[in-house]
């Protein structure tokens, strides 16, 4: 564009020269316009180059100065560790895309993005995607934007449906892949964020994480767009997603007054932005080890109420991999207790001796971190404002042997033929 404008300017110059006197005022005006346009073109996006280290230097040109300041303020011990971490985000919709942008701006090491959908105009009531991206896959559009924002982040995109058998295999192998950090223990990612919009996909993320012994966080926004939640799931240690029917934050208004007819989902950029913010805040606390990582945090926007709770795993969980993780967790208890005792002893010895020799203003530190005495509910007792989304499976008697009619055919091919014969009529 700059070249075109330059040529235009030159042509105008020669035109001016070729014209008989007096010098034409409108040509001067045109030239001024073109000069302004050239300036505008020059200010068009420039991509910054990749940075090897995160600098704490406070200058306008350093994208990490305000993040590294967290270290100086004593919030985070070692912020730069964030570059070692990999986070997988499943579902790049209203919550997932915003979470991805937040982590990208925070300088996360690597992001894995999963979605099978395309960007539509109907998504424009939410954040992140732009109208000119309509028609692109959400993963491609996200990579396009995120790369521009922060080229230091390694982005991997997977355009697939994780609930299908094939998609699930790819999902699992991508989580196992350790090429980003070979020495990492366990899987190839540090955390999986579920930002999907349906129960089926959540159950699939749960299945994968239980099998891989992978810590993950669940997030969700209700279909009426006025409440949401985030949840931390550590296989074996906390309830898995299949341990009990999913929790939902009750809207707090009479359910009968809610009009469901005719629509399957509403959405608001506000609720989704809040939930994405809560999710990534919990992610940062988990990865960079500061503050308290919430096991469950609900958000009811109509009443501005934030219920919290803890959930222990269900020893009768229907998910086999969850039961295996529960067993492992119990077996590791003595080692865990020993490590905890050692840590406590260390902090105790470190705390000995006064921090300040004099205290002119009689300043004292008061502990206000009231420990939640609320017993971790296993399944039945729920805090006010939370309800179950689905009923539990009914107990059913172990079959009193299949009826004689059932025994007649027990060959898969034969059964297929029977159905085809019926279909042919």
């Amino acid at each position, binding site marked *: 564009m700059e070249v075109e404008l330059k040529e235009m300017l030159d042509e105008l110059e020669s035109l001016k020269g070729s014209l008989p006197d007096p010098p034409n005022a409108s040509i001067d005006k045109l030239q001024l316009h073109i000069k302004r346009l050239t300036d505008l073109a020059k200010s068009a996006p420039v991509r910054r180059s990749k940075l090897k280290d995160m600098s704490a230097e406070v200058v306008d040109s350093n994208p990490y100065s305000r993040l590294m300041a967290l270290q100086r303020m004593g919030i985070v011990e070692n912020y730069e560790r964030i570059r070692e971490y990999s986070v997988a985000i499943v579902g790049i919709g209203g919550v997932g895309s915003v979470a991805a942008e937040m982590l990208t701006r925070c300088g996360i090491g690597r992001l894995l993005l999963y979605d099978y*959908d395309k960007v539509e105009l109907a998504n424009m009531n939410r954040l992140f995607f732009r109208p000119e991206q309509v028609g692109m896959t959400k993963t491609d559009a996200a990579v396009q934007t995120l790369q521009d924002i922060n080229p230091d982040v390694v982005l991997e995109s997977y355009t697939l*449906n994780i*609930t*299908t*058998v094939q998609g*699930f295999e790819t999902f699992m192998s991508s989580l196992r892949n350790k090429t980003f950090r070979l020495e990492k223990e366990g899987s190839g990612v540090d955390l999986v964020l579920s930002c999907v919009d*349906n*129960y*089926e996909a959540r*159950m*699939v993320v*749960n*299945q994968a994480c239980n099998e891989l012994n992978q810590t993950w966080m669940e997030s969700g926004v209700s*279909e009426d767009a006025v409440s949401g939640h985030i949840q931390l799931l550590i296989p074996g240690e906390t309830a898995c997603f*299949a341990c009990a*029917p999913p929790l939902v934050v009750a809207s707090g208004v009479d359910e009968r007054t809610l009009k*469901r007819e*005719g*629509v*399957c*989902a509403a959405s608001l950029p506000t609720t989704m932005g809040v939930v994405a913010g809560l999710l990534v805040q919990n992610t940062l606390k988990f990865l960079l080890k500061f503050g308290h990582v919430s096991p469950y945090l609900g958000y009811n926007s109509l009443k501005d109420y934030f219920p919290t709770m803890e959930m222990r795993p269900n020893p009768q969980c*229907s*998910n086999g991999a969850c039961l295996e993780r529960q067993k492992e967790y119990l077996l590791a208890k003595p080692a865990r207790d020993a490590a905890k005792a050692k840590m406590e002893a260390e902090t105790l010895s470190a705390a000995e001796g006064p921090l300040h020799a004099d205290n002119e203003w009689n300043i004292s530190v008061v502990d206000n971190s009231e420990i939640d005495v609320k017993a971790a509910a296993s399944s039945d007792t729920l805090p006010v404002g939370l309800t179950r989304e*689905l*009923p*539990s*499976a*009914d107990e*059913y008697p172990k*079959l009193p042997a*299949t009826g004689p009619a*059932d025994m007649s*055919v*027990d060959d*898969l091919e034969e*059964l*297929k033929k*029977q*159905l*085809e014969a*019926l*279909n042919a*009529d």
Partner: protein
Amino acid sequence: MEGWDPNTKSTLTQIPLLTVKAGPRDGGAWTQRLKEEYKAMIAYTQMNKSNDNDWFRISAANPEGTRWTGKCWYVHNLLKYEFDLQFDIPVTYPATAPEIELPQLDGKTQKMYRGGKICLTVHFKPLWAKNCPRFGIAHALCLGLAPWLAAEVPILVDSGMIKHKDDAASSTET
């Protein structure tokens, strides 16, 4: 099951219940489950035919039985409206139900998710959760798809979103 019409209720009780709790990643157990799925579907199809209420065709689209395709139809004002029908068996089946898709209706009704997946949240998902693993594909068609068609097709026809194939043909000819 309150609120369901007596016909659906009596049909439902006659579809054989399943017993094997296995999904497509469970090897031999999945084969056992698949046999039960076939038995239930055969029984349901036979029942529909003898009650003069035949309304779908479905068959496995791959040897593993994880993808199913077929047709379903609904009669409204004496005219038959037919749609392609498809779904995958999710890896977490039967803990989660198959997501039934009618791709031709994608974008034509609000009671549908992207890709033509019909909305089952309110009327069907709680029933499926309660009856896991006894419900199978046949139950999903009977309690999920059939009531959806009965509720949505009349609205789609009356609002002009879908046209009967004869009407559509004649209007393009003229």
